[in-house]
């Protein structure tokens, strides 16, 4: 049944139904409504979880890591500066193969200080070993949380995940969402059985020191788990579709791509605006399509190559910049398409919450078709 609610509230409601046993989170705009809602639920005894209040995000993720290692299903949420503060712990969580699910309410990183949306925060941790999923709307955001726990807790995977949705654009937007019942979630997501846990009766240490003889092989194992996560996600996404009627078996998803000459590639809420823009361009006779990336890590290189057969020009919309080297998604797409003959252009767009209109999407397509790319789109040169 569809209900009208704020994106953050939908996330809190779905996380509650995922039955986390420990939550530790620190409030930060634009994630605050999520953690406030969850704290309220715990206080009201609607959610039977241990809520550990801490003084910073570093402590929040550290508490989550400890709780997860002790065998609990754990949840946290953060963004931007908060995620940056968790940097060290993120690598430890993945290295210790703890299946923590954390919502990232995507927000730009300072300096200059900004509370508005772009995807720099989560993308900047693309090397950390966390799976990364990006949602186009609040329904997908809610659904991806359930799928994330299922994939992460698979004993073949045992990796943490970021479920990313755009700050303000999705977090603070009210729109219809269909929330499953507790029974329906329980049917999809069984109780957490840890692969191993800290237990005084059977003591073990986790995250120990590794000499040069072993370190590389540990990292290789994590990378292999990442690669296995592709199939695990496809399976979990298909099962989700069978139970709930919304299929998530695609690591990527095409929109009007079948006979497209030019393809846009994007992640997150911008895909909604892109789809409307594509419909307008198609009505005007242009053959344009969208390839939406849903899982950024593991990077769906083979799926991207496969989906873009027949496309001659690709315009990647990057809501981030790897300073000194262009957009992260664009760079990785170019790498995936190396040797294929497809021309790929990268557009840095919408940083710091700058609004993107349908006309901007059309302008990007125009630029790409004219052979102009690898640039900041919409730069206000008058303020430079």
């Amino acid at each position, binding site marked *: 049944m569809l209900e009208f609610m704020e994106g953050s509230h939908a996330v809190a409601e779905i996380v509650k139904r995922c039955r986390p046993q420990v939550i530790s989170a620190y409030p930060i705009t634009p994630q605050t409504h999520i953690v406030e809602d969850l704290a309220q639920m715990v206080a009201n005894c609607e959610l039977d979880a241990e809520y550990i209040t801490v003084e910073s995000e570093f402590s929040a993720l550290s508490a989550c890591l400890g709780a997860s290692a002790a065998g609990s299903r754990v949840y946290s949420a953060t963004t931007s500066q908060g995620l940056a503060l968790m940097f060290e712990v993120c690598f430890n969580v993945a290295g210790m193969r703890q299946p923590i699910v954390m919502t990232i309410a995507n927000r730009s990183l300072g*300096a*200059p*200080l900004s509370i508005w949306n772009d995807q720099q925060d989560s993308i900047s941790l693309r090397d950390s070993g966390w799976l990364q999923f990006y949602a186009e709307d609040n329904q997908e955001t809610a659904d991806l949380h359930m799928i994330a726990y299922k994939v992460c807790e698979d004993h073949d995977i045992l990796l943490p995940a970021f479920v990313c949705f755009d700050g303000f654009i999705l977090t603070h937007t009210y729109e219809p969402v269909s929330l499953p019942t507790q029974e329906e979630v329980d049917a999809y997501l069984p109780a957490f059985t840890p692969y191993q846990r800290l237990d005084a009766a059977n003591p073990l240490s986790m995250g120990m020191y590794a000499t040069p003889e072993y370190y590389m092989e540990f990292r290789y194992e994590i990378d292999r788990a990442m690669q296995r996560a592709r199939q695990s996600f496809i399976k979990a996404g298909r099962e989700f579709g069978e139970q709930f009627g919304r299929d998530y078996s695609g690591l990527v998803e095409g929109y009007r791509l079948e006979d497209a000459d030019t393809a846009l590639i994007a992640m997150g809420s911008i895909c909604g605006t892109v789809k409307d823009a594509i419909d307008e361009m198609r009505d005007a006779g242009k053959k344009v399509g969208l390839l939406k990336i849903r899982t950024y890590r593991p990077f769906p290189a083979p799926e991207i190559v496969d989906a873009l057969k027949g496309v001659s020009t690709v315009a990647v919309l990057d809501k981030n910049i790897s300073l000194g080297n262009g957009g992260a998604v664009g760079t990785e797409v170019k790498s995936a398409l190396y040797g294929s003959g497809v021309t790929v252009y990268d557009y840095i767009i919408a940083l710091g919450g700058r609004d993107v209109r349908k006309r901007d999407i059309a302008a990007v397509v125009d630029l790409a078709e004219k052979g102009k790319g690898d640039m900041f789109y919409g730069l206000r040169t*008058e*303020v*430079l």
Partner: protein
Amino acid sequence: MALRVGCAAPPGRARDNKTGTWRVFKPVFDPETCNRCGMCAMVCPEGCVRETEEGTFEPDLDYCKGCGICEEICPKKSIRMEKEEK
């Protein structure tokens, strides 16, 4: 206009933002009944109450947002919040 390196900015810009336009209610101070205790100036969250030469107090209506804390605290009921004609 060049963007300043380091996103740096000089102080004092907040003064340009005349928050007085935000208010719905305006404080009216009566110097006749004022006992000069100074509590209003102390509690104003915006620093918008200043002492006059006579030792009584008046609001800075350029910035006063009309929160009414001064009316609340005044022991002599010497301050009244009134709906402002805009």
